[in-house]
Each structure stands twice: as structure tokens, then as C-alpha cells.
């Protein structure tokens, strides 16, 4: 073989090697599984780990792994919004984690997409008594999500700011609430109420605006369909908020504030009141140990004496239909919903358990938590967005005309009519 032939052969080998290596890179190379290895690895995506004390969720999962030597769990943790995008993208591409943390607002769309497995089957497979579950989120009579823990959204008051404004007791109805907010704003050091209306994550519509409707026994739906136009309960709330807006009682910049901004405003003493998740109590106390604040039931419509809905948000859980390890996923699901683990999760997050037999101990550790428990018991959990199609889009479609209404460019009726029209398109 001549030198030129050798060179030709060598360069050809290099070219073929390059082709093979690229193909391997492009299509992924999977090493053959070790025949002796029987450990199954499942992934669990959620936004809970960053919100729980450091290492808490990892510790719970480590216990599960030691109890189930054949199962390893990879925690895929991130902030709420990142988890949402990741879950939707994963559902679209069939790469969703085996076990997924869910918000009730996502369930309808993910279920319609065929991305979620039937949890009734999963619990049967894992021999878990479903009678222990506090709630099941069903679409067309099939369970797709179960709340692991629930957080209520009470009214937070900065008691020093209220005292400075001459308010001695927390407001119980809308008139008292508006008066307290106006008084706090008049001090010049803070605003009375902070609401987040950012379109990036429009959940302020659910937690801060519609919560006032539910607190007075109202509803935004009728027969499961949108009912905004001609709805006195909803109209009374938006006109009430507009009144406070015009009075200058609401933190400026609300149109671009999101939930974390709301908590920051309150924590730093720039807002007298907010409606917020109980899960943020630890965060507030850590950031401002000297902040003198308390929690209360939401203000109701003047003269309303009935039972009120208490807005809540869930840390829900589901299983991917595309999971290759449904039995292992079901085992993790059952483990998290078991009485002792569910109690532990509820205690860690100061939440209400999703297992009816779990008795959280945190309610007795702090008078504020005891108040939260009393608020929880005095009403009924209410979140009408849970299970609705395109729930976050519904919030955005309410938020956009609501901002126009607050800006004064449209009337209350026109605002509700616009939102109703857009909502109907999603149903």
C-alpha cells in the first residue's frame, strides 16, 4: 500500500469516526443496562423543595428510598413558574417526570392532553386506602390530582402600621377594610393594601380579588360555566377594589407586581395589609423577625353573616401517563400521602394535610398558626379556578380588562362583559 493510499484510508477512517461520533451525540447513546442492577430510578418534579426548610424534602425522600431499596428518586426542583413551564413542555414531548407536583390550575389541560395517569388505578396498584384522602381533583370522573397539602390565604395585617394609623382591630368587613387601608395610606409611610396584578403570573386575580368574592359566599361560575356579567357578587368586589384604587389606598405599581413582590412589600413594612398564603409566614419571620403582624379571616361584604369560602392553594401531585415505572411512581405517591409522612410535610410547610387522618402538630406551636386553624375551620375551602380549563389564562383574561377598569378606561360592566366573552372562548 502506497503512502497516498495509506493517507486516504486514514482520512477516511477519521471521517467515518466523526460521522459515528456525531450520530451518537445526536441520537444519544444509551449504555446497556447492567443485568444485575434492579434499581429503578424515577423522577419527581415539584416546586416544593425550595419552599421547604433546606434538606427537608430530600430527607423525606431518603427515608422512602431506604424503605424501598429498589427505587431511587431524582428530585427535579425549581421555582413554581419554572416547574409549570417544565411540566407543560414535558407533557408535550412525553418527557414529564414520573411523579409531578401539580397546581389545580394545570390539571384540566394536562388531563385533556392525556399526560396524566388515572390516580385511582395508581392507588389501587399501591394498595393505598383512598378513603384517607381529603380531596381528589377529578376531570370527567377520573382522578388526576390529589392535594398533598393545602395552604389557606388569610388576611395579613401589619399591626404596627395599623396602630400608627389609629386602627385598633383587624377589619372584618369591606367598609372597615377600606377605612383601615385609607388610614394607613394617610400616614404617608406605607400604603394600605398591596395587590399583585402582574400578567407574568396573574394568580393575584385568584388569590387577592376573587378570594373576596368567595369569602362572602359568592361565586364566579354558574353550573360550572363563567358567570361574570350581571353577577352582583363579582361586581361588588371589583367596584370595591376600584374605590380603594381611586382613594390611593393600594400600593402603586400593582399592574406589574407579582406575588413575591407583594410579600416583599408587606415584609418591608411598605404595605399595611395583604391577602397571602400561610406558607409565607416562615419567610416573613425570617426576613423581618421584628415585624409585628397577625393573620385574620378575609373581610366580607358589609352585613354578610353566612359561612365564607377560604381561598386555598394546593401542593398537588400526579403521575405521568408516560411513566415507564407506574408501580414505583404509585409507591412514592402513596408514601407521600401516608398519615405520618403527610403529617410531617404539613408540619414542615405549616399547611393543612391532604390525608384526613393526619393531625398537624404545627397548629399548636404558635398562636398565629392556631388562628389559621380556626380560620380554616370557620369556613370552607374555596378555589373555583381549580380544575377549570386554561385556568391561568382565565386569570389573565380577567386581569387585562380589570387593569383597564382600574385605569378608568372602561366601566365595571364593560370589564365584566369583556372577561365573560374571553372566558367563554376557553370553555
Amino acid at each position, binding site marked *: 500500500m502506497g503512502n497516498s493510499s495509506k493517507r486516504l484510508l486514514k482520512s477516511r477512517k477519521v471521517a*467515518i469516526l466523526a460521522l459515528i461520533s456525531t450520530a451518537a451525540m445526536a441520537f444519544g447513546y444509551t449504555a446497556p443496562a447492567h443485568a444485575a442492577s434492579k434499581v429503578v430510578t424515577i423522577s419527581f418534579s415539584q416546586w416544593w423543595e425550595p419552599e421547604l426548610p433546606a434538606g427537608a424534602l430530600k430527607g423525606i425522600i431518603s427515608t422512602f428510598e431506604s424503605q424501598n431499596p429498589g427505587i431511587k428518586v431524582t428530585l427535579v426542583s425549581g421555582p413554581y413558574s419554572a416547574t409549570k413551564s417544565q411540566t407543560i413542555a414535558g407533557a*408535550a414531548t412525553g418527557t414529564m417526570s414520573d411523579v409531578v407536583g401539580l397546581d389545580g390550575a394545570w390539571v384540566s389541560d394536562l388531563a385533556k392532553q392525556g399526560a396524566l395517569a388515572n390516580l385511582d388505578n395508581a392507588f389501587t396498584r399501591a394498595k393505598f386506602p383512598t378513603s384517607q384522602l381529603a380531596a381528589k381533583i377529578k376531570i370527567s370522573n377520573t382522578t388526576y390530582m390529589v392535594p398533598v397539602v393545602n395552604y389557606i390565604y388569610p388576611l395579613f395585617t401589619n399591626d404596627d402600621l395599623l396602630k400608627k394609623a389609629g386602627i385598633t382591630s383587624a377589619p372584618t368587613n369591606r367598609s372597615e377594610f377600606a377605612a383601615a387601608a385609607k388610614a394607613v395610606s394617610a400616614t404617608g409611610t406605607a400604603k394600605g393594601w398591596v395587590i399583585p396584578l402582574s400578567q407574568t403570573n396573574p394568580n393575584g386575580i385568584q388569590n387577592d380579588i376573587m378570594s373576596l368574592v368567595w369569602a362572602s359566599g359568592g361565586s364566579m361560575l354558574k353550573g360550572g360555566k363563567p358567570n361574570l356579567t350581571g353577577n352582583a357578587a363579582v361586581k361588588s368586589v371589583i367596584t370595591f377594589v376600584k374605590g380603594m384604587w381611586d382613594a390611593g389606598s393600594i400600593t*402603586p405599581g*400593582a399592574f406589574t407586581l407579582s406575588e413575591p413582590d407583594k410579600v416583599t412589600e408587606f415584609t418591608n413594612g411598605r404595605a399595611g395589609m395583604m391577602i397571602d398564603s400561610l406558607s409565607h409566614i416562615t419567610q416573613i419571620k425570617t426576613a423581618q423577625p421584628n415585624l409585628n403582624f397577625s393573620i385574620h379571616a378575609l373581610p366580607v361584604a358589609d352585613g354578610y353573616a353566612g359561612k365564607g369560602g377560604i381561598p386555598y392553594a394546593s401542593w398537588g401531585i400526579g403521575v405521568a401517563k408516560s411513566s415507564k415505572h407506574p408501580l414505583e411512581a404509585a409507591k412514592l405517591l402513596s408514601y407521600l400521602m401516608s398519615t405520618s409522612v403527610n403529617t410531617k410535610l404539613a408540619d414542615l410547610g405549616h399547611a393543612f394535610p391532604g390525608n384526613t387522618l393526619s393531625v398537624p402538630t404545627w397548629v399548636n406551636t404558635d398562636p398565629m398558626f392556631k388562628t389559621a386553624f380556626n380560620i380554616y375551620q370557620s369556613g370552607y375551602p374555596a378555589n373555583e379556578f381549580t380544575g377549570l380549563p386554561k385556568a391561568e389564562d382565565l386569570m389573565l383574561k380577567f386581569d387585562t380588562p380589570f*387593569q383597564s377598569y382600574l385605569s378608568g378606561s372602561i366601566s365595571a360592566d364593560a370589564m365584566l362583559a369583556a372577561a365573560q366573552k374571553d372566558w367563554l372562548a376557553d370553555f
Partner: protein
Amino acid sequence: MSLTARKPSEEKSIRTRLEPYLFLSPTFLLLVVLMVVPVGLVIQYSFLDNVIMNQFPKFVGLHNYLTVIKDPIFQIALKNTFWFTAGSVLAHLIIGLGFAILLNSPHLGKISRSIFRMIYILPWIFTVAIIAILWRMILDPVGVLNYALIKLGLIHTGVQWLSSPKTALLAVTVINIWAGYPFYMMSLLAGIQGISKDLYEAARVDGASWRQAFFNITVPQLKPIILSMTVLDIIWTSQQFAMVWMTTGGGPITSTQMIGIYTYQQAFGRYEFSLASTSAVLLLVASMVLSIIYGRLQNRQD
């Protein structure tokens, strides 16, 4: 029928001809996997009824395109994107050129030139998240800018720069200008430093003023760079998403709604992946037209 064996020289010739393609195959393969397939899928999605959410999507022709083009929110997004891009690109050019000329000034010493260059380039170094946080604090109703303006007696109460429908588009455009001018500045500075000093010397001998030298020597000499950068900047700015999303989220109301945000909301807020794909394809077509113009400009320069 008889088969004729190929001659060794002919076989060698085919192999020799194939060889370059084998060497190029890694790049081709990566291009196909990372570019052609995703872009092709997005184009395909734009002709189907709601893909991903619909397990058996059907071909709907141009229906999605008509839906998107007729959507009032898309029209607002298009208009906002135009003003945002036009304002940003023009200001990038003017500020970038101004700072480049300042940095090239013979009156600046070596050390002071380096210090100014470092300061002026800072916005280019910051990530989008940092820029968004920084400007949200500056433009907050109780932020630094309002404080300064109130102290100067220019305003009486804090302006909601990012939260008012009247000022939000202007505010995000200013942020984008601030974040993007250093790229122009550095490129134009390199261009200015490449202009022969003899040209300015000859102009001075002929009695040309600074203004005449600027418009008759500097600008014509920088024209190829300016044209190329303008086209690139239009492409980048029209696709801006992260900064606007992190500061205003497309609001208040629809005042900072952009095509990028419209596309994101269609996909991840409304789960309308076909409409999101359609919107993305429309932006892709516009960007491709600009890319062709850019390519031609480059060829002309070569």
C-alpha cells in the same frame, strides 16, 4: 444483462469525492437535528389544529395564520414591537456612535480611556435578569429615578414608569437601549480606529470643519458596519422577550405586549401551541427577510 466491474480508479474517484461530505457530515447532522428538524416541526405545527393538546391534529391550511393576523392582541404586539425596535435601534446607533467617538478622542489619556471603556461596556456584561431587577428598582414608584426627579422639583409624586400604560413602552425601550448600546459602541470604535488618519489630515488641510469631516469621512467609512449592525439589531430587538417579560410581562393592559410575549402566552398560558407556532413562523419569516438583506450587504462589502 451483464454487470461490469468498476475500475479501481473510478472507485477511488467516487471515494475521493465522498470524503469531504463525510468530514462535513457531523456539522450537517447537527444542523439537521438542532435547526432543520425543530424549525420544520414549528412550521408544520402552524398548519395543524392545536397540536400537542390535540392527540390527532388535522391540517387546517392557513386558518391559524388568519386567526393570528386578525387577533387584535397580535396587532397590538406587532405595533409595539415596531416602535420598541425602531426606538431601540435608532438610539443604539446614536448613543453607540457618540460614545465610540468620545472614546476615540485624542484628548483622552490611555488610563482614562480604559476606565471609560470599562464603565460604558458594563450594561453589555450584565445578564438579562440582573438588568431587569436593576431597572425595576430604579423605575419603582418609590425608586431612585422618582426620588431624584422629586428632589429636583421636576415631578411632585412618583411616576409608575413600568406600571402605567402611558409610560411602560417607553420605559422598556429605554431599558433595552441601555442594555444594548455597548455592542454598537465597541464595534463602531473598532471601525473608527481603522479609518486612516491621512483622510482627516487631508480634510484639515483643505479647511474642513469637524462636522464636515464627520459626515464626509467618518460616516461613509463606517457605513458598512452601521448597515450590518442595524440589520442584526433589528433582528435581535424584534425577538426580545426575556427583558420585557421580567419587567412588565407584556402589561399593563397590553401596553408592552410584544410578538415574543404573545407567542409565549399562546404556548404556555393558553396551551395554543399551533397559534404560538404560527406567531413564531411569522417572526421567523420577518427575520429571514432581514437575514437575506444582511447577507446581501455582507456580499456587497466583500
